[in-house]
C-alpha cells in the first residue's frame, strides 16, 4: 500500500525486536471471538488515478454548468488562487492544534490575525479562533449569554436562519433554556413591539440576524436598548459576512455569532465552513473556543500562545464553557488569507458590487407583471419577491434552462407560499441575471 512506509522485511525485523512471532500476537488482548476472521467488505483498493476518476464521475452527476441564485446562508464569492496556495502548504494543512507554541508560531500568529480581523469587521473587542459554523456559533453564543446573565428565556427572531434556529432548539431541549420565537413585520424586520412585550427580566438573550434571513437589515441600536433595559444581552448572527464591507458593524450587540464561509470558502455542499464568536472584552472568560494571545519568550521576543485555556474542556471538563475541541482552524486561515488579499478597499468594493447587482436584479424582476418586492427594509445581496405563481413551478422551468432558481421560502415559512429569496453576488454576471429574469418571465407567461 503506497501510504505505508514499511517493507515486509522491516515488519519482520520489528516483530522480532518486540519478541513476537506474528502481528496477530499484538492483538492478543482482543478476545479471539471478537476478532474479524475475514477482510472487511469495502470497495478498493484504488490507485490514485482511480480515486480521481471515481470523484470526477460523481462531480459530473451534480450541477456543473448551472447558474445559481441560491444564498440563504451559503454564498458564492470570488476567491484568489493565493488563498488555496497558502492553505495547501503542508505546514498549515498537516499540523495539529498549536499546543506546542515554539513550533506552532505560524498557526498561532495567523489565528491572532484572524481574531483581529474579526474584531475589526464586527466592531467587537474580542473574537475566538473559530467555531464549527454559524449555526453552532449562534447556539454557543446563547449558552454564553445564559452563563453571563444566569437567566434562561431566549427570545429568538423568526427572521433568523431556520436551520440556525433548529440547531439552537436541539441544544436547548435538554438545557434549562426556554426558547420563544418572535415574528417579523411587513418591513421584513423583527417585530420590535412583540419583542418588547415579551421582554422581562428573566430573558438572557435576544437573538436576531442582520442582514436577516430575508436579506434585510435589523436596527440593532434600538434592539440593544430594549434588551439591556431588562438585563438581557443582544446576540446578532451574521450569515453573509461580506455585507460588513459596506454595512455598519454590529457594535451595539453584546455577542456576535458569524459564519465566515463568504471569505474564501467554497460552498462544498454545506461545509466545512468557519463560525466565529466575537464579543466584549469583559465577557471573554465565558467565551467558548480557543483564543490565541500575544506574549513574549524568555528573551523578550514577541510570540503567541493559546491562552485562557481554563475555560476549555481539556482542563475544566464537566464545568467547561463548551465541549468544543476540534474547530475549523484551516477554514479560519482561509478567511484570514482571503481578507488580507482583499484588504480594506477590496472588501468594500466586493460588498458594493453585491449591493449593485442585487439592486439591479430586483429592478429587473420587478419589470415582470405580478412580481413584487415583499419587504421594504434596506437589503444587501438577498431580497424576497412574491411571484404570481408557486416558486417551485417557476424553479422547475428555470432548471430546464440550466438555472438553479432562488430559495423557496415556503419550505421554512408556510405563510410565504409564493415567495422567493433571491441571492445575487459579485460572481453573477449581468448576462446571467438577464437570462434568469427572462426565464422567470417566460415561466410566468406560460398557460397554467
Amino acid at each position, binding site marked *: 500500500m503506497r501510504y505505508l512506509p514499511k517493507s515486509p522485511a522491516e515488519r519482520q525485523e520489528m516483530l522480532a525486536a518486540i519478541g513476537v512471532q506474528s502481528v496477530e500476537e499484538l492483538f492478543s488482548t482482543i478476545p479471539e471471538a471478537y476478532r474479524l476472521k475475514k477482510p472487511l467488505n469495502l470497495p478498493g483498493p484504488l490507485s490514485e488515478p482511480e480515486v480521481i476518476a471515481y470523484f470526477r464521475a460523481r462531480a459530473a452527476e451534480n450541477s456543473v454548468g448551472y447558474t445559481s441564485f441560491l444564498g440563504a446562508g451559503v454564498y458564492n464569492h470570488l476567491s484568489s488562487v493565493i488563498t488555496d496556495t497558502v492553505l495547501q502548504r503542508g505546514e498549515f494543512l498537516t499540523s495539529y492544534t498549536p499546543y506546542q507554541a515554539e513550533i506552532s508560531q505560524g498557526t498561532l500568529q495567523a489565528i491572532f490575525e484572524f481574531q483581529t480581523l474579526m474584531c475589526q469587521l464586527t466592531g467587537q473587542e474580542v473574537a475566538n479562533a473559530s467555531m464549527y459554523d454559524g449555526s453552532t456559533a449562534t447556539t454557543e453564543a446563547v449558552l454564553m449569554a445564559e452563563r453571563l446573565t444566569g437567566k434562561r428565556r431566549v427570545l429568538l427572531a423568526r427572521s433568523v436562519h431556520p436551520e440556525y434556529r433548529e440547531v439552537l432548539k436541539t441544544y436547548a431541549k435538554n438545557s434549562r433554556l426556554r426558547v420563544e420565537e418572535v415574528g417579523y413585520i411587513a418591513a421584513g424586520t423583527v417585530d420590535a413591539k412583540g419583542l418588547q412585550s415579551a421582554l422581562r427580566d428573566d430573558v438572557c438573550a435576544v437573538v436576531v440576524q442582520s442582514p436577516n434571513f430575508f436579506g434585510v437589515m435589523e436596527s440593532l441600536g434600538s434592539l440593544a436598548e430594549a434588551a439591556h433595559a431588562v438585563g438581557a444581552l443582544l446576540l446578532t448572527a451574521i450569515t453573509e459576512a461580506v455585507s460588513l464591507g459596506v454595512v455598519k458593524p454590529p457594535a451595539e450587540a453584546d455577542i456576535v455569532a458569524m459564519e465566515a464561509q463568504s471569505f474564501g470558502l467554497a460552498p462544498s455542499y454545506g461545509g466545512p465552513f468557519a463560525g466565529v464568536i466575537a464579543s466584549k472584552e469583559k465577557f471573554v*472568560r465565558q467565551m467558548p473556543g480557543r483564543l490565541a494571545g500575544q506574549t513574549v519568550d524568555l528573551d523578550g521576543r514577541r510570540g503567541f500562545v493559546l491562552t485562557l*485555556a*481554563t475555560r476549555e474542556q481539556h*482542563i*475544566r471538563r464537566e*464545568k467547561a464553557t463548551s465541549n468544543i475541541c476540534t474547530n475549523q482552524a484551516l477554514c479560519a486561515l482561509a478567511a484570514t488569507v482571503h481578507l488580507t488579499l482583499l484588504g480594506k478597499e477590496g472588501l468594500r468594493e466586493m460588498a458594493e458590487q453585491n449591493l449593485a447587482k442585487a439592486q439591479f436584479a430586483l429592478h429587473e424582476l420587478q419589470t415582470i407583471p405580478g412580481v413584487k418586492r415583499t419587504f421594504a427594509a434596506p437589503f444587501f445581496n438577498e431580497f424576497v419577491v412574491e411571484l404570481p405563481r408557486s416558486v417551485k413551478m417557476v424553479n422547475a422551468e428555470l432548471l430546464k434552462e440550466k438555472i438553479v432558481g432562488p430559495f423557496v421560502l415556503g419550505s421554512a415559512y408556510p405563510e410565504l407560499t409564493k415567495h422567493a429569496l433571491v441571492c445575487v453576488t459579485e460572481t453573477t454576471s449581468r448576462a446571467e441575471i438577464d437570462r434568469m429574469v427572462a426565464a422567470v418571465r417566460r415561466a410566468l407567461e406560460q398557460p397554467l
Partner: protein
Amino acid sequence: MAYPKEYRYTKEHEWIVVKGGIATIGITDYAQHELGDVVFVELPKAGAKLAAGKIFGSVESVKAVSEIFAPASGDLVEANAALQDKPETLNSDPHGAGWLVKVKLTNPTELSSLLDAAAYEAFIAEKQKEASS
C-alpha cells in the same frame, strides 16, 4: 512560609481569621505553591452568602482551576478587588495581601471544627511525604 498561629485552616487549604466580628478568608501558602502562578481569581459578587464547605470562588493558573471552599458560613462584606489586576499577589503574599474575601460570620461555632496551625502543618507534611514516596 510560616502558618500564622491565630489563623484556622481547612483540609482544602483555605485559612480564616476573625478580627472585630469580621472574618477574612484566603488560601494557604501550600495551596498557592501547588497551583503555581495564579493568573485569575473568581470571587463572589456583593450580596453573596457563603455556606461552610461549599464552593464560593475559584483560583486559576495557566492549566488548572482550583475551587475554593468556604471554611465557615457568612455574608460577604468585601471581595479583594485588588486581585483582579494583580492575581500574582496570591503567590507572593497568600496569608496577607492575597486574602480573598471578608465575611460576617453567621455561625461562628463552625470555626471550632477547623485545624489550628500545628494540625494543618502536620497535615501538609503528611501529604508531602505521600507525594515523594
